[in-house]
């Protein structure tokens, strides 16, 4: 078994043992019914008392062959409204960037918590999409309205 696979199994074990409240994360099922450990789906709940609360935002995490030496790729659904999310849904976050802050010691838990943090506190210095970034800087009310609309779309089932 490769380093990547063993690490992912450990991640799965760790996650099942303990994970932050409101989150979920699981490997997707391949067509033949077996688990595909290299692709996970996860849900990020918006923080309480923020624009994002009340919704669980779905992400897909794809682990490359070189994981954990290289970071996983994390995506929201396409057209996700957030200043640091590319139109394709790819998240721009320093801890997920190989050239920046990625370290093999970062666990899945830290990744999802990092993303949750990013939702409520976007980084205006590294914009990834035009509309959300412009709105975030110039038209706060439009931005807030859009975020609330989005939260309704991903409303938590529980």
């Amino acid at each position: 078994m490769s380093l990547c696979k063993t690490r992912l199994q450990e991640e799965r074990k760790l996650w099942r043992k303990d994970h932050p409240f409101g989150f979920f994360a699981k490997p997707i099922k391949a067509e033949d019914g077996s688990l595909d450990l290299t692709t996970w789906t996860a849900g990020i709940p918006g923080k309480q008392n923020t624009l994002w609360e009340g919704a669980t935002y779905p992400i897909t995490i794809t682990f490359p062959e070189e994981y954990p030496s290289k970071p996983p790729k994390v995506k929201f659904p396409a057209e996700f409204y957030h200043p640091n999310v590319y139109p394709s849904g790819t998240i721009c976050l320093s801890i997920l960037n190989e050239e920046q802050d990625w370290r093999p010691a970062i666990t899945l838990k830290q990744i999802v918590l990092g993303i949750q943090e990013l939702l409520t506190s976007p980084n205006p210095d590294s914009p990834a999409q035009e509309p959300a970034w412009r709105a975030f800087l110039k038209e706060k009310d439009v931005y807030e309205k859009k975020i609330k609309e989005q939260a309704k779309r991903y409303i938590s089932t529980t």
Partner: protein
Amino acid sequence: MSDVDGGVPVGSYSKIELKNFSIAFNLEDQDDIPNIRNVKYKSSSDHLCCAICQQPFIQPLTTVCGHTFCKECIYEFLKVQHQRSSRSRTNGSDDEEEDSGRLIGSCPLDRTPLDSSKINELFPTPLIISNLVDELEVYCLNYERGCEWTGCRWELDHHVLSDCGYTGVACHGYRTVDSVDKEENEGEETKKQTDICKMLVERRFLEEPRSKTVGDGDRDQEEYECIHKVYECTLCQARITKIEEGKHLQSSCPYNYTKCKLCFNDMIPMMNLAKHEENCGKAGHLKCPAHEIGCDWVGNSDTSLEIHLQNNNCQLSKLLPYMKNLNNKIDDLSKENSLLHRQINKILNSIISGKVTNLGYHEPMEEINRFSSELSSIENQDKLLFLNCELNRLKFELDDKILPFVNRETTARSDRESILNGLVNDNFMMKDDLNLQRALVNSLRKQLQFMLFKRNSPPGLQSGGLGGGMGGPIRSSVSFAEPESVEFFDIPSSSNSEEKLNLKL
């Protein structure tokens, strides 16, 4: 009725595949080594886990910043980092310096720069840590196949390689194959051909000796038939192979009768025995407490059991406590034995992998062997004896003859030293005296010169001088200062030579 497909004819070979789980170990080649990265741990500590793979360390290395990682993990990470940095470097300038093995990167935890070629930046973790991780309890790699073994991680290799019955090995049994369907030779109807089975089976299904002769001695192997061969169960005619035989007889053969020890019904199929015995027990059948060691008595009530136990009816029940004691002792001993076994294996392994070097000897192992073999030869022992005698003799000589002489010499030397000191003091005193004498001599010479001058001076002047009282000679000495001073210049030079003489003395 049958376990195997009804279509499989007797004498053919079944195609039962070895159940392969992701981590189960198969010994296909003599050099196969179990991969402990796949091991399932029974217990573990977060502190002993590598930050990269999140598993207990395997061959840990420590960085200069104090973090510890598995060797494989940290090298893999440094490799990726190195590749990335060298790629960006070659993009800028086209230099192709590629020292293989040298990886430059940074610590995955705190980004301290690391150079894998520098032993002080990335070095083996202290043995205590690797020993701690090696001591962690693990399950057998074949646990999914049913092996119940657990033990320390360092024991795992030995267990799966040589002990575990669930390790997959090649059958290597001989098959006889009819070659009818191949080429039909005229004259011979069917030619029997032999073939070696290459399918994997769990080791426990093979007879003991075969697993040892795998790969060497074709003769031996011919005696074994491929265990995949299908034959009919002698009891129920179901078609089975050796692999399934035990399970078949235990749990599915309806005609494998045994006798119930309680009700003496001998028509109980093995598969139903447990249930039957349970029912028999409920029906009031009792066994003698000594049934474990062979008492066959059974009865229907407590009173009959009492009678059985009293009056020396049952000798075996008297032996029961003793036997139990013995059994306990045997258990303890076998436990101890297996522990010792494991420890020996550990020591052997660690010697092989170089953890314990030379068991405390200073020389390398080969040296010790060479030396001891030399010692053992008789000729050399004689030489050694002779050398010993010689050594003793020399020692004796040194003690008796040379040492007194040396002592005498040292006392004499100290005497001479004190004399010398006295002489040196004398010398100094004499030198002082000499200087005093010289000063006297100088003054005398001056006086003499003065007197000579007085005598040689013209008489007129002498008389005038007389008349002039004491003023005359003073004036004259002033007026004649020049010729006198010429003479005076000579004096220091002569006194110089005198001084030199003194110094020489």
